[in-house]
């Protein structure tokens, strides 16, 4: 059994730098969230450039030590996204993944050698997968969960901070082979484990400072003196960990979030933040070979309420420009009632559509390209105005609707069929009302309509009566005529039976 542990130390700091990677080389401290805390906020993490600043200091104290210190408030939204990204990075390497906590993921590394290589290559692949989603991680690989966790902790000492295109890099790994396990554990200090204070104090009084010293003691008497927790510690110190990895199914939602330092009340700052969030989301989807089939936007408003909306995409996509347009369209059409304080974007995912390119002939539109184009067009004109034309099952003349555009795959050998060119009707939606003068028999003589839709009638045919849809709220009862106007224009006009109103429904072209 081989277990790898992916750990993200200083989660708050990594989350802040993932959003602003350019600050990696700057003296930066991430402090407790809370606008009323001011200088009393505690430091949760700091970059190496912030010399002298340590975790637990108050911000005022840290600023006194490092005057150039930049401060960012910890953001739960960003940290959630980092934790999720770390989980996805692990899932990109192994199918069996267990998330033990925010930024702490175990993965089953057994059998990966044939795919990736030896243990070092596997650990390196996990570090690289985390960096692809903008997360700096420490990775440990050993034969059990607890040793892997300790190995990851040991690797934390080798971490650096590097800005990458997708976030923060500089991860490190430590591999502990089974034959070196005892030696590795023996050298670890007891404070490397999160032991209860009481037990730690008791061990210190006994003069025990390292795991090796604990492992050398007989477990029975140790447990008799210090209780069951000491027995557990003794087994751990000898590398005896039988806890199994509990793999959990992959969530079908990918989330990214951001908290704003001010209340955004216009679209421009939101666009700026959305772009960054979508870039990271697209990167994560790409790493997992997924696409978004639905996008959920959550806006936390100044009054603390959430404005949530779902954007049903016309087709799966991970194209940032199209998704950005859709978000913009959604907020422009229904502006939030108050300023925005935090943003959460969730993508409901689906598998990427793979395409087979043709060997001969011109390359046509692939399903992915079509999907992206439909999403972009939906963003441009609105999703209700893009789709496959559908003739609805109604009696209303020239009725049209649109359905989901999902063209079937092209035939292997297209057979050209003769096409007949016939006069087509250009529907006027909605029909234009017109004043029509008729003779005594009811035959139209003159049409007075808007623009070119008017003139003397030189030829006509009709009426054709349609009485239908009387069982609905929009009954159809009309007499239709084909008319040729003096200029040569051919139109379809209709007189409503109930009101006597004339309307022009289509132009023949």
């Amino acid at each position, binding site marked *: 059994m081989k277990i790898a542990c992916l750990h993200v130390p200083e989660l708050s700091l990594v989350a802040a730098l993932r959003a602003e990677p350019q600050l990696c080389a700057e003296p930066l401290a991430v402090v407790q969230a809370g606008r009323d805390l001011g200088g009393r906020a505690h430091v949760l993490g700091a970059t190496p450039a912030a010399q002298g600043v340590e975790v637990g200091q108050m911000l005022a104290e840290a600023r006194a030590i490092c005057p150039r210190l930049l401060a960012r408030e910890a953001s739960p939204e960003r940290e959630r996204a980092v934790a999720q990204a770390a989980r996805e990075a692990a899932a990109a390497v192994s199918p069996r993944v267990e998330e033990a906590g925010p930024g702490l993921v175990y993965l089953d590394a057994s059998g990966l050698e044939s795919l990736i290589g030896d243990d070092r290559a596997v650990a390196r692949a996990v570090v690289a997968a985390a960096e692809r989603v903008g997360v700096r991680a420490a990775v440990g690989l050993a034969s059990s969960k607890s040793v892997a966790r300790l190995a990851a902790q040991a690797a934390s000492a080798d971490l650096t901070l590097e800005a990458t295109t997708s976030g923060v890099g500089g991860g490190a790994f430590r591999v502990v082979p089974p034959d070196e396990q005892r030696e590795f554990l023996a050298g670890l200090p007891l404070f490397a484990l999160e032991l209860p204070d009481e037990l730690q104090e008791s061990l210190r009084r006994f003069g025990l400072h390292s795991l090796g010293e604990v492992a050398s003691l007989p477990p029975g008497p140790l447990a008799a003196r210090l209780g069951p927790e000491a027995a557990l510690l003794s087994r751990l110190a000898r590398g005896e960990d039988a806890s199994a990895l509990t793999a959990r199914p992959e969530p079908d939602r990918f989330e990214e979030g951001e908290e704003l330092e001010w209340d955004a*009340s*216009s*679209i*421009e700052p939101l666009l700026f933040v959305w772009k960054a969030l979508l870039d990271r989301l697209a990167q994560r989807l790409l790493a997992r070979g997924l696409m978004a089939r639905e996008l959920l936007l959550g806006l936390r408003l100044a009054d603390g309420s959430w404005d949530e909306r779902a954007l049903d995409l016309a087709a799966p996509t991970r194209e940032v420009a199209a998704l950005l347009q859709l978000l913009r369209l959604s*907020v*422009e059409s229904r*502006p939030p009632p108050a300023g925005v304080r935090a943003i959460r974007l969730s993508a409901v995912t689906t598998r990427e559509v793979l395409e087979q390119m043709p060997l001969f*002939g*011109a*390359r*046509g*539109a*692939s399903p992915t*390209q079509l999907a992206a*184009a439909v999403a972009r*067009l939906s963003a*441009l*004109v*609105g999703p209700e*105005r*893009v789709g*496959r*034309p*559908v*003739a609805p099952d109604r009696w209303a*003349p*020239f009725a*049209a609707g649109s359905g989901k*555009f*999902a*063209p*079937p795959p*092209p*035939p292997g050998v*297209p057979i*050209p*069929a*003769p*096409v*007949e*060119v*016939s*006069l*087509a*009707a*250009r*529907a006027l*939606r909605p029909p234009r009302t017109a004043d029509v003068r008729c003779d005594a*028999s009811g*035959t139209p003589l003159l049409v007075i309509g808007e623009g*070119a839709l008017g003139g003397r009638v030189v*030829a006509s*045919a009709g009426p054709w009566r349609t009485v239908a849809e009387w069982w609905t709220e929009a009954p159809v009862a009309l007499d239709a005529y*084909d008319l*040729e106007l003096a200029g*040569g*224009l*051919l139109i379809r006009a209709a007189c409503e039976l109930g009101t006597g109103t004339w309307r022009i429904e289509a132009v*023949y*072209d």
Partner: protein
Amino acid sequence: MTLPARRLQRDLHALDELLRNGQVRRAPAFLPRAPRAIPTGVPALDAALGGGLARGQLHEIVGPAGAGGTALVRAALASATQAGESCALIDPGNAFDPAPCGIDLERLLWVRPHDPVQALRAAEIALEARFALVALDLGDVTVLPPPRQPRGVIQVVRFEKKPPSPGASPWARLSRRAEKHGGALLLLARAAQAGTFAAATIELERVRAQWEGPKGAAGRILRGAHVVSAVTRHKRMPPSAPLPLHLPLEPK
């Protein structure tokens, strides 16, 4: 000449060396046959266009309402979709009638922009997505530049939408997109719009409507229309002679 396989195995740079010396020349890249043009449905018109609507080119149909421009666009869409190709119809006038007309509607993406500027952008997006034929129906609208903002006015935009702009030369951009992505762009307009950016211009004229039955009689029906078409400008072909067309009307 042939190169001994053993030598190739021994020294992979041998081929590069021979290529540099000119002893071995690269064969021309394998070029598949030029893709078939999209037929318009009128054989005489296809002949005048050199086989139909060439891919990677902008074609323009110009004619008054009733001259059959929409009929030609639908015939081209029918011919492309029946061949299994995906097509897009950009229809800012919302004028498309999906009644049975030979078009495989499963393969047609119908886009109804709100204004001509959106229509031009939508056509660009459709061309980038490699639709085989993109039909831009400007039969009911004209492309007009937006009104200019007075100078020195600071516009405060909150959640409202900004007015779109058609850009400097939409036709140059569209013809470049068509050429780059290999799709045919068919523009229908009432007056010439694309100018020299169109590879071919088809002009249409109304002649007369065809009625059946005595005037004023109850059974009189509109049978269709006679029109004249001509390829008045083509980048590679001479202008064609007037081509008379009869467009029958299916009873609705």
